[in-house]
């Protein structure tokens, strides 16, 4: 299968600290990849580089065959706007906008806000009836589903989730993972950064990071699509 993402000999150094140390990784199109590791292992740094939110100190990043590691900040902004959907542990919803407006924000900076499309995105995560509620009126699980709807509204090639179930209870965690399963079935590439084994073990492929290095990279034999 063709690679959507290729990381070649990536290092990221903050001051004297190597957050990533000569890491190489390929992510295939339509693959569901979990990046796991303990706190401080370099997971978030990896996510920032994969999501084009940061540049590596050394090495190359290819997205859909194109080297993006030397691109300007403006080009990278366009890239993660057009091709990457982000899901955060803290949800980061704008608290004065209701659920559908939070989804429309991503449309506004991508192309044109379309409330009908935004409502359809909320329907895909089972939240159409909560469209007019403010974040403060939604549970943690519902807020994370709004965050996922915002990530998928522009039909990105890659969904990048940073500890997506970190602030959720078990019931909501299952709902979110079910949504990921559906997205994967639809052909969306998923990269989930997590330290939670239960979340990591549902992915198609699991990469383990420790001290900024990949210590294991394996296909999940228990993966059920």
């Amino acid at each position, binding site marked *: 299968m063709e690679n959507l993402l290729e990381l070649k000999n990536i290092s990221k150094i903050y001051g004297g600290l190597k957050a990533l140390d000569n890491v190489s990784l390929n992510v295939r199109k339509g693959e569901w990849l979990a990046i796991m590791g303990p706190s401080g292992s370099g997971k*978030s740094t990896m996510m*920032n580089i994969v999501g084009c939110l940061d540049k590596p100190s050394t090495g190359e990043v290819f997205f859909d065959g194109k080297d993006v590691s030397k691109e300007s900040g403006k080009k990278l*902004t*366009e890239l*993660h706007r057009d091709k990457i959907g982000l899901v955060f542990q*803290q949800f980061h919803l*704008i608290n004065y*906008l209701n659920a559908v407006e939070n989804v429309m924000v*991503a449309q506004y*900076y991508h192309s044109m806000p379309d409330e009908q499309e935004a409502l359809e995105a909320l329907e895909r995560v089972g939240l159409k009836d909560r469209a007019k509620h403010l974040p403060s009126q939604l549970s943690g699980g519902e807020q994370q589903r709004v965050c996922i709807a915002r990530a998928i509204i522009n039909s990105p090639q890659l969904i990048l989730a940073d500890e997506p179930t970190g602030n959720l209870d078990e019931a909501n965690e299952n709902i979110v993972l079910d949504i990921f399963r559906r997205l994967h079935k639809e052909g969306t590439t998923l990269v989930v950064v997590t330290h939670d084994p239960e979340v990591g073990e549902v992915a198609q492929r699991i990469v383990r990071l420790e001290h900024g290095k990949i210590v294991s990279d394996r296909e999940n034999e228990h993966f059920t699509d």
Partner: protein
Amino acid sequence: MFFRMVKGTFIRQKKKLLMIALTVALGASIATAMLNVMLDVGDKINEELKTYGSNITVVPQSSAVISKLYDTEEEDDDAQTEYIKEEKVGELLTIFWANNITDFAPETDTTVTLNNSEVGLVGTWFNHKLEFKKKGSVYTRDTGVINLRSWWDVESGTMLNEQAVSGDKYAMIGRELAEEKNIKAGDIITVSRDGRNEELEIIGVFESGDDDDNMIYTTLSVVQRLTDTVGYIKKIEVSAITSPEDELAIKAAKNPSLLSGDEYDLWYCTAYVSSICFQIQEAIPEASASAIRQIADSEGKILEKTELLMSLITFLSLIGATLGISNLVTSGVMERSQELALLKAVGAKNGQITFLVLTEIIFTSILGTIAGYFLGYGFAQIIGHSVFSSGVEMSGMVAFIVSVLIIFVTLIGSIPAIRMLLRLRPSEVLHGGH
């Protein structure tokens, strides 16, 4: 969506934005008050100085030449003095700026003998009813030293009212001379010159605080008889409301013929003391009109210093507003760093986020400026009434200048926040680092 986000910020950060609006309002109010007072202060100081007497003196051409040659204010030798025809005095009220001439009085002075000693005697109008012709019609106007010497303090008796007495043999005497000669109100004195005598009734004793305290003031016709110059006067003192001198007025004062056509029209149609003098000379060709330098200089110096002070206050208030805005906007951006980082993460460009933040701040500043303008109107009136005992006229130009200044101040004050916003990295804010 854009305005929904702006509206959302107004609701969510209303306290912060209210503080910005108040900061702007304070700066705008001080700038509005100071600039309006500054623009109006020239007229106000003119009005103040007008109460200190005449600001233009009109003398015969030859006296003016002698005065300029020898740099003297007065020419004492009657033998060398030319005169202006008394009938020409009314011509003052035919000039373009006639309405700005508030008072005037012709004068002829001489030295007379009183009780075996020489004293100064000034003949003038006290409250003369002047008839004059303008565009074929005859008008009357009361004028004289009653208004021109408004600071005279009549210590005993009353001010001479020409229109209430019969004849002209009346006089007012200065306090020091009255004390020296032991003259009181109601006394009859005899003054002599070249064998001519005049008996005058003292109507009042005045204190002037200047050389007039050693003089006798009487009606013009008495001095004309004593000096054998009936129908003639030595000079005219004129009090006129004038515009503050500027570069054009200074240039014109040197030589009006050096002005271009447009400059000449502007100068002629502005109530500069020099253009009023010029028009008086046009109306009375045998006379020379000039500004009383002391008054004009005082006005210029007071105006210059007042304007400098007000400019400084305006500048400092705007600096204060800039610093206040800078602090408030920067702390606002810091509070919203996650929201703004998220916008970057979903694809907003730096320019779009900057535009969003500046729209919020400028809209807030506009509201603050409107409030500040009206507040400044109040301040200006308080300053006007407490310093000049009259209101300050508000200028539309000031509203425009203040608006431009506040937008400039707002943009300058927002620079640190915008720099912070541009440096904001979603990777650090949204994930909490590595």
